[in-house]
């Protein structure tokens, strides 16, 4: 009679703002899995979560910043990376994670992505790629596959999508990987590596959008997962220019780039700042 029912607690509860749950993501959406992987990776990596910040732009993935129980910021559309850059430079001891979607990071915010990678700003950018603008109702994105149907390409997309790992590599990113939400373990390990990598780190996560993308392309949530299982190949040594998303030929997953080069702040300090300031800051640390 007096037995107290043990309350079941999700292992990530302490990293979530429980008062914001239930979340807005649709049944079958992959963002939740990408988000869980990110939270697990943050915890497993051993980084100081008290000094970790999540920044999002606009879109379904942008809600990530609202749900994470860390310092977080939901920026205007496309501006997650410049906002994160400002924050990282203002307080270099922060771990700054950008969690946003393909529409936000690669269309309206595309220029910021290539320049932050060029400067090798020490950020971890996780892009949930669901091939369309999910939140506004499924319009064509810079990642929509050729001939795929969306609400603004009703007879099929006439344009070629970006190869995001190639773009990241060509722009100067020092960690580049691609996984799907079905490859949860690899994805989590990869995000962990990206968090620990010093420099601009990029992880693309392919993720189903059954309600907007899937519905118009005869692909339900399970179909998407089957595609992720049957038509993907893990090739960690693949060249970035071989990574176009082509469902017929097979999609290449893996960790493609991990390299070292001086970060934005390293280069700036070495080139531009008088030594006494740098020494002074070191003393403070």
């Amino acid at each position, binding site marked *: 009679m007096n037995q107290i029912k043990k309350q079941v607690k999700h292992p990530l509860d302490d990293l979530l703002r429980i008062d914001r749950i239930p979340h807005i993501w649709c049944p079958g959406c992959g963002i939740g899995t990408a988000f869980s992987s990110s939270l697990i990776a943050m915890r497993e990596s051993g980084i100081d979560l008290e000094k970790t910040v999540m920044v999002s732009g606009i879109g379904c993935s942008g809600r990530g910043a609202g749900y994470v129980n860390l310092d977080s910021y*939901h920026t*205007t*559309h*496309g501006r997650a990376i410049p906002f994160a850059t400002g924050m990282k430079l203002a307080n270099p001891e922060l771990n700054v994670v950008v969690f946003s979607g393909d529409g936000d990071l690669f*269309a*309206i915010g*595309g220029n910021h992505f290539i320049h932050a990678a060029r400067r090798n700003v020490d950020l971890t950018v996780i892009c949930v790629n669901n091939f369309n*603008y999910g*939140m*506004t*109702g499924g*319009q*064509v994105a*810079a990642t929509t596959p050729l001939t795929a149907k969306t*609400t*603004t*390409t*009703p007879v099929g997309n006439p344009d070629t999508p970006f190869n995001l790992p190639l773009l990241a590599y060509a722009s100067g990113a020092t960690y580049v990987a691609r996984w799907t939400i079905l490859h949860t373990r690899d994805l989590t390990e990869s995000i962990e590596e990206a968090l620990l990598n010093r420099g601009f780190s990029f992880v693309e996560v392919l993720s189903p959008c059954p309600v907007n993308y899937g519905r118009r392309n005869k692909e339900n949530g399970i179909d998407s997962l089957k595609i992720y299982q049957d038509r993907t190949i893990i090739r960690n040594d693949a060249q970035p220019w071989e990574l176009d998303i082509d469902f017929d030929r097979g999609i290449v997953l893996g960790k493609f780039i991990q390299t070292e080069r001086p970060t934005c702040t390293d280069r700036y300090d070495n080139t531009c700042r008088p030594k006494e300031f740098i020494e002074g800051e070191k003393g403070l640390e």
Partner: protein
Amino acid sequence: MSKDMMTGSDAVALGVKLAKPDLIFAYPITPQTHIVETLSEIAPSWGGRFINVESEFSAIASCLGAVSAGSRAFTATSSHGLLLMHEVLHWFVGARMPLVMVNANRAIGSPWNIWADQSDSLAQRDTGWLQIYCETCQEALDTVIQGYYISEKLLLPVMVMIDGFIISHTMEEVEVHEPQKVDAFLPPYAPQFKLDVDDPRSFGNAALPDDYYRMRKAIQRTFTSGFEVFRDCHNLFEDVFGTRYDLMEAYLCDDAETIFLVAGALTGTTRVAVDMMREKGMKVGLIKLRVFRPFPKHALQKVIAGHQDVIVLNRAVSYGAQGTLTQELRSAFYNVDDNPDIYDVIISLGGKEVFPEILMGVCEGIKADPAFKDEMIWV
């Protein structure tokens, strides 16, 4: 002529279809998305092209390129999308390029809010765009067509406003105009100057101060003389389609002691409120401000008399000063001997609901205490 039920977004898309622009560049943003989704589907039907570009900044810059090369173009946006366009909005006016853009009025962040107010478009007041605010879906359709007429005559861009959700997502009965009639009203775009390899010209050069000044003065002169083009447009539109539009509309103002001044879909609510108050014997009227730029100062001076009170319903604030429409109206009556008491009411920011009873309460409150005229009244 046939009638159909459609949302404001579809009415806009139909207006665009009838105006047949060669090129449409747009980026989706709530609550404008249905306009561009419909256009993406129907643009090829008249030989047009729709390109879903990578941002609003790209959309408006692409439109500038298209019209400079002699095409008729269209775009639609809202809120933050409009703010992102701001640099090119100024450039469009300086370059004297015609365009029609529909803006689904929506609040501006921070904090995030997707509901209707007029902060986005009224913040573009000084860019030199002509601005027209619509009350109904029919007016949205008709104003798009009129927008091209006016824009291509004055060589200035036209921004057509519909309230986000309240018009964009609400269905009303709409008259579907016959294409031949629209062709009779709106001739094909025939630019006097365009980028043309057979007749090479250079656009967008630097101008020394004297030339710059002269060109800026010409913009203002066009605004001053622009009222004639509006009059011609409204007369011709009435001849062809049988519907009369004006710079503004006065409703029950003649014997009114108090007049509400309002723009956009809130006009509909205010109409109902005015009818309710009239039934109670209150002498109230309504001015629907349709054309905000050029500001119809003389038309307003003719309708409003000194013994009347004017309650301005603002859905945008110039912080630290007054409601944006209040500023404009007070300025229109500066140095006029017979000027009314103008009340500065801020109402319905971020989609805050307005009911006719609220407007009646405002009217009664002001009657009870005239000291309100020195305050900014937040309802």
